[in-house]
């Protein structure tokens, strides 16, 4: 017995799939750069709005159209004398949190729907995926616009509407994975041990779906940030004086000849954020997806 314990202790530690994935991810320069930049951006979005001497909605009648690096405003001010630095990071904060919340909504719906359909199979699966097919062919951005028009624009609605739109692909991915997982031996073992279907889905199927889901989540966040900014740009998203990257770009575009900095700083921030997510997503896919190994 003690011999056995000793052998187990001295035996070389196996490399788990996640160790491999981490190693591959860290070897991907673009993904690592993306993670570092994104970390800085997220921290800045959390901290900078608290540190700026001006708040994002503070109107300074005496400091209108101040160019960047002149005077008290590092990034200049807009037509109402609002500090662009404060507004920019507030906007980033709003855009990132919409991305995070709406992605969570889509994650919950998508995983629940896909795992249930895939696990139960048969007619339930058929019906559930047919519904997804039907929803898939709808141009959803138009429905979000419709929602915004008929029910007015509030932040919660934007979260839910965009999240509810983006779960379809997630549910397809999860269903496909579940179908292959449910025939694995450990699921059989769990069933033989007398575990209920709900518990099997929760404890054995969902944790094993993590890989592809994580990849898809990192690609959903930028899509959602983009969708929100698109709405805000059209004047249907976040309402003033609240800022999001989309509203900032929209306002900047109106005054770009007079004050190009109002367009350039938010645009650069937006593009940088989206690129970080895309690099991380691509890196994760290469690291986790066993197909390309």
């Amino acid at each position: 017995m003690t011999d056995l314990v000793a052998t187990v202790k001295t035996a070389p530690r196996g490399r788990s799939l996640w160790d491999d994935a981490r190693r591959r991810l860290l070897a991907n320069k673009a993904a690592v750069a993306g993670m570092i930049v994104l970390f800085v951006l997220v921290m800045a979005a959390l901290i900078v709005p608290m540190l700026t001497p001006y708040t994002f909605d503070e109107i300074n009648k005496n400091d209108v159209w101040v160019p960047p690096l002149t005077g008290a405003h590092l990034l200049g001010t807009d037509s109402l004398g609002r500090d662009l630095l404060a507004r920019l990071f507030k906007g980033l904060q709003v855009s990132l949190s919409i991305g995070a919340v709406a992605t969570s909504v889509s994650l919950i719906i998508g995983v629940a729907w896909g795992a249930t359909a895939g696990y139960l199979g048969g007619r339930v699966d058929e019906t559930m995926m047919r519904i997804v097919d039907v929803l898939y062919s709808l141009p959803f951005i138009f429905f979000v616009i419709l929602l915004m028009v008929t029910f007015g624009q509030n932040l919660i609605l934007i979260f839910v509407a965009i999240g509810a739109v983006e779960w379809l692909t997630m549910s397809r991915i999860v269903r496909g994975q579940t179908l292959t997982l449910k025939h694995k031996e450990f699921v059989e073992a769990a069933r033989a041990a007398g575990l209920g279907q709900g518990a099997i889905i929760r404890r054995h199927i969902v944790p094993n779906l993590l890989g592809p889901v994580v990849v898809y989540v990192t690609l959903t966040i930028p899509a959602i940030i983009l969708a929100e900014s698109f709405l805000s740009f059209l004047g249907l998203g976040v309402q003033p004086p609240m800022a999001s990257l989309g509203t900032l770009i929209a306002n900047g575009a109106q005054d770009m000849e007079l004050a190009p900095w109002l367009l350039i700083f938010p645009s650069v921030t937006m593009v940088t954020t989206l690129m970080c997510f895309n690099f991380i997503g691509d890196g994760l896919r290469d690291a986790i997806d066993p197909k390309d190994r």
Partner: protein
Amino acid sequence: MLRFLLRRLLVAIPTLFAVVTLAFFMMHAAPGGPFDGERALTPEVERNVKAKYHLDLPVWEQYGLYLKDAVHGDFGPSLKYKDKTVLDILHENYLVSLVLGLSALTLAMLIGIALGVVAALRQNRPADYGVMTIAVLGVCIPTFVTAPMLVLLFASILGWLPTAGWNGGALANLILPVITLALPQIAIISRLTRAGMIEVLRSNYVRTARAKGLSEMRIVVRHALRAAVLPLVSYLGPACAGLITGSLVVERIFNLPGLGKFFVISALQRDYTVVMGMVIFYAALILVLNLLADIGSALLDPRVKLA
């Protein structure tokens, strides 16, 4: 083929039905009625008006009537333009969007395929990395960033092109909007072409062609390209959906009198009927284009099984 068509119709019809139903009930849930003007109507007038538009009927009967009219292409009157129906508005504004969309699609196809081929032939060399960088940027830079940036550079600073306006469809006015619309599509098309080309160039029949001693040019254009761009046909549907979405932003920024601009204005003015009608129209359009793209790719590519 017939089976496939039937299957697709079986999905398309409930989809359209779902669109109309969602649109109708959203319209009814919207606060305020269509005839809440600044001036209150007298009870008699209100009753007559409501009877005219069937607003006095129970909701499900109104729904039935709306469904019937929608099937006949009648989406009701505009609330802001009292003398126009939604259909009039579609009819008056579609041309600009059509010209814009088709030009952008053509441009995106030409440039995207060319870039993709170059990247595939020079795989893992500077030209390839260059193209792939453009592809990443094209996906990450949204239309509403490209458009103002292009205007700032080419119109405001350099003064080469007009900042906005339609001007009867003059070429100078078209250049910037078309480029803006095409850029994200160029990015995706070049990626797809590159992937297709790389796969095809490894295949046996290309090796045979090479062994026969054909020139590289002939191999690429006549043999490889044809097979490599086939997957693009099925991308045409999503591409059109992307162009339609993009047109909302582009027509607004460049102040072009097309459907996209009208849709956004109606949305901001809460012209419910117009917004509903146009959502249904766009949904139907995208469904039809997707169907056509799938049929097209099946007709051209014998490997695609119509299931």
